[in-house]
């Protein structure tokens, strides 16, 4: 049992366990905090796969900004737990979900098992280095990069407009 397999097993178990909590726990705040654990475990897996830049970005953007946004909205809206009295989903819905999930899982397993080959060659320091991605990003993928900037601008404007308080009556101005 090499050290790499142990570390992978640790982070994979962490990711799966906290993903289960995200999906199953009734309190949405606990779900959100479990999502943070999942994201950090995934960042560790990214590092193991030779993508330290993406791992740092994952922590910076996903856990540092997106999930904080989730928490803010949850707390400002004072969301209550999903009550245990009324079940969250009807019987038919649960069975349907289970069938869909199994079909999905089966398809994905067959796909991935066939395509994912064995162990890749060990990484060299040059492959993990940052300039590789930087060069690609700013030469070949420059157009998507700029478009992403525009997309984020549109999202900022949209979020500001959607979340703003509507004036109480038509006579009151802003």
């Amino acid at each position, binding site marked *: 049992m090499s050290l790499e397999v142990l570390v992978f097993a640790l982070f994979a178990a962490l990711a799966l366990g906290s993903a289960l909590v995200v999906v199953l726990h009734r309190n949405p*705040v*606990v779900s959100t*905090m479990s999502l*943070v654990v999942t994201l950090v475990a995934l960042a560790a897996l990214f590092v193991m796969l030779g993508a*330290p*830049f993406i*791992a*740092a*970005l994952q*922590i*910076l953007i996903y*856990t*540092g*900004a997106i999930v*904080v946004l989730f*928490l*803010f909205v949850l*707390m*400002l809206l004072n969301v209550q737990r999903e009550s245990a009295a009324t079940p969250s989903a009807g019987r038919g819905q649960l069975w349907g979900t289970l069938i869909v999930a199994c079909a999905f899982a089966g398809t994905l397993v067959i796909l991935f098992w066939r395509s994912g080959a064995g162990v890749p060659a060990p990484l060299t320091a040059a492959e*993990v*280095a*940052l300039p590789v991605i930087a060069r690609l990003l700013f030469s070949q993928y420059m157009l998507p990069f700029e478009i992403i900037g525009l997309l984020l601008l549109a999202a900022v404007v949209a979020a500001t407009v959607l979340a703003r308080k509507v004036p109480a009556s038509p006579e009151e101005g802003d």
Partner: protein
Amino acid sequence: MSPQQIEIAATAAKMLVWIGFLVGALTPVMVWVERRGSALIQDRPGPNRLGPFGLFQPVADVVKFMFKESPVPAAADPFLYRLAPVLALVAPLSTYLVIPLAPRFVVAGQPIAGVAADVDTGVLLLLALSSLGVYSLVMAGYASNNKYSMLGSVRASAQMISYELALTLSVVAVLVPVGSLRLDEVVAHQQTSLLHWNVFPQAIGFLVFLVAMFAETNRLPFDLPEAESELVAGYHTEYSAMRFALFFMGEYMAMGGLSALCATLYFGGWSLPGVDVMAVGAWLAGLPGLGWLGGGILGALVGALILFAKVVVMMLVYVWVRWTFPRFRFDQLMRLGWKVLLPLALLNLVLVAALTVGGVL
């Protein structure tokens, strides 16, 4: 020992040096400095009962924290309430991993980096890990089941994420002439002379960083979320004894982390202009009794001491500012962060980029 074992031992030693400095030296000394320094500025004696000049006051504080009762509110979320202070300590501690203590030095024929985490994504990792500190604020406020805590934590986290932008942009401006995210290259870029210290060519960026640094750590003049006269004690209202001590220590660690980053980015880190750290280390190794450590380790220790001295100076500035300025109101705070600092940081970035392309920087 094999090269791998030397590498592992070196990394452990670097982490121990940081933790030893932080927990052993910085936090107790800062507690004392805070109280005596504030007393000096406010023209009163300060603690002077315990030991000469009240030097054992931190010891008394620790004893008090250990023996005080730490009640958990009845309606508090049991897991999150206990987790929040732990995260408040872990998130700032992890930011020290990428700050270089020393240049590359040689131990037993093997080159060792001066950073605990010798990764390409250096400062990005620091920014990412320090942004995890928001969670301790949010969890503390939410789990306490107390409206003052909730309000304080919402304000504190809004403040932290707002000023993270200005902080990150001023850091990016420092990285543009260097061309790398690694902090040891940033230090190498500043080694030539005193005027090369980034605080001079990037003065605007330094000012933005300084203000954002205070806001990130919730220190006066930006400490509305935890001020005593405002929301009781803000997000840590319901915490006492050892849990409060963890928040307290976490705040000092965050201050130290950002001070170390400031020292590395703007004041040359472990380097002093005209001082060759490794040569000093080699000279020290010639002294009787120190030869067994070797010039490499001694040089690294000299570099670390220079860095620690700069961090201590920054922390003194923190204390000085705290007791000098009045507090910002929350809307003034947000206005400053978004409408003043962010445009200034962007302007600084554009200027630095233009100067770098023009060949000046």
